[in-house]
């Protein structure tokens, strides 16, 4: 497995976490919990952005593996 695909896997995992957190932040009844989940969403969004940029760099470096 190339580095790019490993990073992509992590990226996918984080996106999954983000999606589930979003579900919980909408369906929870408690305001405090909602705020905490929303902050968590914000943090995951930042990390996902960073990783997406990194994937672009990696794909540029190893174009032969692009799409893997």
């Amino acid at each position, binding site marked *: 497995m190339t580095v790019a695909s490993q990073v992509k896997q992590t990226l996918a995992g984080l996106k999954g976490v983000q999606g589930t957190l979003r579900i919980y932040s909408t369906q929870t009844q408690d305001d405090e919990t909602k705020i905490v989940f929303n902050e968590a969403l914000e943090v995951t969004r930042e990390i996902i952005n960073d*990783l997406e940029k990194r994937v672009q760099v990696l794909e540029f470096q190893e174009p032969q593996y692009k799409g893997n």
Partner: protein
Amino acid sequence: MQMWIQILLRTTSLFFLTLILIRLMGKRNISRMTPFSFVSYIVIGILAALTSANIITNLAFGFIAMGVWVLFPIVIDYLSIKSKWIHDLINGKETVLIKHGKIMEESLLQARLTGEELLRELRSKNAFNLADVEFAVMETTGDVNVFLKSDKKPITAHDLGQKVAPQTEPQTVILDGNVLNEPLTSLGLNKEWLRIQLENTGVSLDNIFIAQVDSSGDLHLDLFDDSVELPQPKVKEMIYANLEKNQASLMTFALETNDENAKAMYSRNAEKIKQLMEKLEPYLLR
């Protein structure tokens, strides 16, 4: 009119009248009544019985007597809400039985409680050892309430310095296979949501005895058919585990890469996830 018809009519009307009057007097529990309100209930009962059995022959007299016994307790209740003085006069004051871990013998005498009875009351409050009790008080209803010494009290999350996620009461959304619409809408959910949830677990509606939605929106089911093992919602634990896994991956990337910028980026984000996990732990795991 024949006697038996008369008694039948009287009894039927008094049955419903008494029902209404007792409802008017409030919803306090029989076991938590002050002795006086107990007496007033008994008097109303006896008056109703006497009137319906035609012992009090004049119906109006019976009603007047009952009316007074219903009205006065209501008036007294109302006054004792408004005035502390009247409240104490009517209900009496609570008696302190144990103070600073020492039994107040005079108070026991005043409450006409023997040592054995006191011990029995303490035991019923799970205080088997007298040494564990810091303070005990006899309420005006005769209940004894116990305050344990601080080192004997059940431990709470606050004692442990642990943060726990706030939780509101769960709502029952299915009872006996019937969907209850009111709790569902109060959660901001609808039948469609419930249908999708049930489809995911693969259970039909008529097999469900009780379904509750907790404050985080997870659905817990109890089926008629207990041989079916249902997966309990573990989604929150899964989020936590996934975060942990991804944090570990980021740390590995940080170690493997030779690009200094990327290394810094990976470490920074791994740190972010770690902080996030600490913050979410009470909400996801506890």
